[in-house]
């Protein structure tokens, strides 16, 4: 039961090696800067960073990614509190009470609460990752090819259905990802599929080409279109240090515990993400409060609930990602891509063959959360607030240059750079029409696993398609997949019944 404790603590000294520490510090700092810039997300930062970490040790690269993840999720609170502009989507909830606090001259206190709450949420989440992922991975040893195929289908359908507003578009996006994954030589027969005699496509489309194209190019173009010529003025970012968290600790602790538990549960569920965790945590805190009317007027507990719930989702979203290869959020999907780029395949083999890396990553999620307190304090907040003075018209071309560096350095060929640009324009169109982009990335990641296991299962059963449905575990996964797929339909029926009942009244 607790045999994971030894490898977990064996990995601890590795995390304290100098280059790993530097990786984490750089990651947290970069993440906070990126998160504090409206329009730039953790996903974008990680997508731009991954190609550049090839020459690094996997643990150093993962440390940077963990730092960016935790840092960006907190960094989003800075513009949310100072300017009522959420730096990242989940920090919308932080604006509810954070901005009114800023208006009352308590911005520094609100930022301090956000910093501490993010760190505590992150720590609780990292502990859940350490406790739950190793035992859960043992369950996956019961999985055969058919079960793995259905796991891939379940992961894909949940991300496709639950992530965007339109489930049909989500499924199309997932299919696009699966299709891009089939480009290249077929691993069994060696035949070339969808390569159209381009030699650079024989090995398939590099995951990073699609990732960078979809996540970095569209926001950069949109920034140029909007052409915001001025950054924020120094006057709008003025802080007045005051108040103390320690004096009010007794009121914060229950909020942090509640937010932490909510964040973990939401994080483990596929395709939910930090926004939902922050919303539920905020609502629950408001619901149990003796003064619910003060929420939205600048209640410090509102900021604490939102930020703690948001960051408690981070490491928890990596539990299904590391165990099954099915990420709990869009950012977790991109980190999963980072693992694959460094040759690390999620599942039992990851825990068995590379325990130092997987447990080291868990520690990195833990320590980067603590680093938030050290680096997210007063001085850093002032610094990041100054970064926000940089106008988007200057940021956008810089992002475009960085996408070139990342993709060109993959194989020193311009074909991949042009392909990345093509995917960027395609991503721009999909983005404008509200197609969710995460299912494309997940389709690309899970496509290979789904096809391999489908063919293996058919091979073992001599072409009998019924073998996919025979096993009890497969049947459970099929029911779960069908439940997810039927959710939009059930929602539609429920809405119609509700509408009918209100019109009858």
């Amino acid at each position, binding site marked *: 039961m607790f045999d994971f404790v030894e490898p977990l603590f064996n990995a601890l000294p590795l995390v304290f090696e100098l280059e790993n520490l530097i990786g984490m510090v750089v990651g947290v700092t970069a993440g906070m800067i990126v998160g504090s810039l409206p329009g730039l997300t953790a996903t974008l930062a990680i997508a731009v960073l991954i190609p*550049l970490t090839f*020459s*690094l040790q996997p643990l150093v690269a993962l440390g940077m990614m963990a730092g960016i993840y935790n840092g960006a999720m907190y960094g989003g609170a800075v513009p949310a509190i100072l300017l009522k502009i959420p730096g990242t989507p989940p920090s919308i909830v932080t604006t509810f009470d954070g901005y009114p606090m800023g208006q009352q001259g308590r911005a520094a206190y609100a930022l301090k609460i956000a910093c501490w709450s993010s760190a505590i949420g992150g720590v609780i989440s990292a502990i859940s990752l350490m406790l739950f992922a190793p035992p859960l991975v043992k369950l996956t040893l019961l999985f055969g090819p058919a079960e793995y195929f259905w796991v891939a289908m379940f992961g894909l359908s949940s991300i496709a259905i639950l992530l965007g*507003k*339109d489930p*049909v*578009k989500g*499924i*199309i996006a997932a*299919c*696009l990802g*699966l*299709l891009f994954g*089939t480009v290249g030589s*077929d691993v*069994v*027969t060696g*035949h070339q*599929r*969808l390569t*159209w005699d381009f030699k650079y496509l024989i090995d398939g489309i590099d995951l990073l080409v699609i990732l960078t194209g979809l996540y970095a190019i569209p926001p950069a*173009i*949109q920034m*140029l*279109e*909007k*052409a915001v*010529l001025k950054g924020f003025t120094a006057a709008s970012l003025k802080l007045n240090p005051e108040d103390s968290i320690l004096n009010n600790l007794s009121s914060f602790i229950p909020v942090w515990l509640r937010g932490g538990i909510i964040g973990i549960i939401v994080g483990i569920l596929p395709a939910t993400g930090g926004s939902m965790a922050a919303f539920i945590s905020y609502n629950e805190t408001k619901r149990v409060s003796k003064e619910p009317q003060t929420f939205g007027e600048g209640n410090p507990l509102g900021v604490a609930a939102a930020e703690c719930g948001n960051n408690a989702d981070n490491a928890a979203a990596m539990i299904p990602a590391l165990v099954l290869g099915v990420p709990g959020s869009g950012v977790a999907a991109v980190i999963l891509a980072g693992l694959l780029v460094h040759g690390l395949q999620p599942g039992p083999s990851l825990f068995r063959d590379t325990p130092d890396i997987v447990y080291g990553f868990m520690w990195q999620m833990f320590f980067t959360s603590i680093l938030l307190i050290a680096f997210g304090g007063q001085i850093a907040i002032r610094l990041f607030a100054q970064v926000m003075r*940089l*106008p988007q*018209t*200057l940021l*956008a*071309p*810089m992002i*475009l*240059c*960085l996408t*070139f*560096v990342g993709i*060109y*350095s993959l194989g*020193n060929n*311009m074909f991949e*750079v*042009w392909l990345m*640009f093509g995917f960027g*324009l395609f991503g721009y*169109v*999909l983005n*404008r*029409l*509200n197609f969710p982009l995460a299912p494309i990335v997940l389709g690309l990641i899970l496509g290979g696993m*789904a*096809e391999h296991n*489908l*063919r293996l299962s058919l091979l073992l059963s001599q072409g009998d398609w019924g073998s996919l449905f025979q096993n009890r575990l497969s049947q459970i996964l099929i029911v779960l997949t069908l439940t997810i797929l039927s959710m939009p339909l059930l929602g539609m029926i429920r809405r119609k019944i509700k509408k009918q009942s209100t019109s009858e009244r």
Partner: protein
Amino acid sequence: MFSSYQKTEIVVCIFLLGCCLFAFISIRHLPTDAKMFPNLILAVMSLFVGVALIRAVMGISQKTQGAKAADWHFFANPKRFIISVIVFSIYLLSIESVGFFTSSGLLIICMATFVGYRNYLHLTLSLIGFLAFVYLVFILVFERPLPKEFFLAATDTCHIALVRYHV
């Protein structure tokens, strides 16, 4: 009368259906085993693109987007979009012959100027800071090979020619 959002959706759905058909044709010569999975994906994708097309024509998907779709335009600013795409394309076309730092410097200056940025002191300082950051991190620390600057390449060519001449 279709709204701008509906029209764009219809065009994209037809384009995706065309892509599915093209992919179907491209893999039809493959052995059954190799084309089974792509065919499965293409079948599901065609089905859902068809559904999306019907929803777009009937305006259902527009409704799910709420009020946003009513005053929706594909481009926030078509002129700036086209300029950005053209300038970035020229950047990619010239980067191997001009060099990374020179063309990146020109890209940042051109794009910022084209979209109306006029604070040249801030622009120059930001540019120097960015290029120094890229040099420090990607060349010195990560040792990433980037396209060589044209003036350095010319110096190298002269040096090689001189060495050959002396030999």
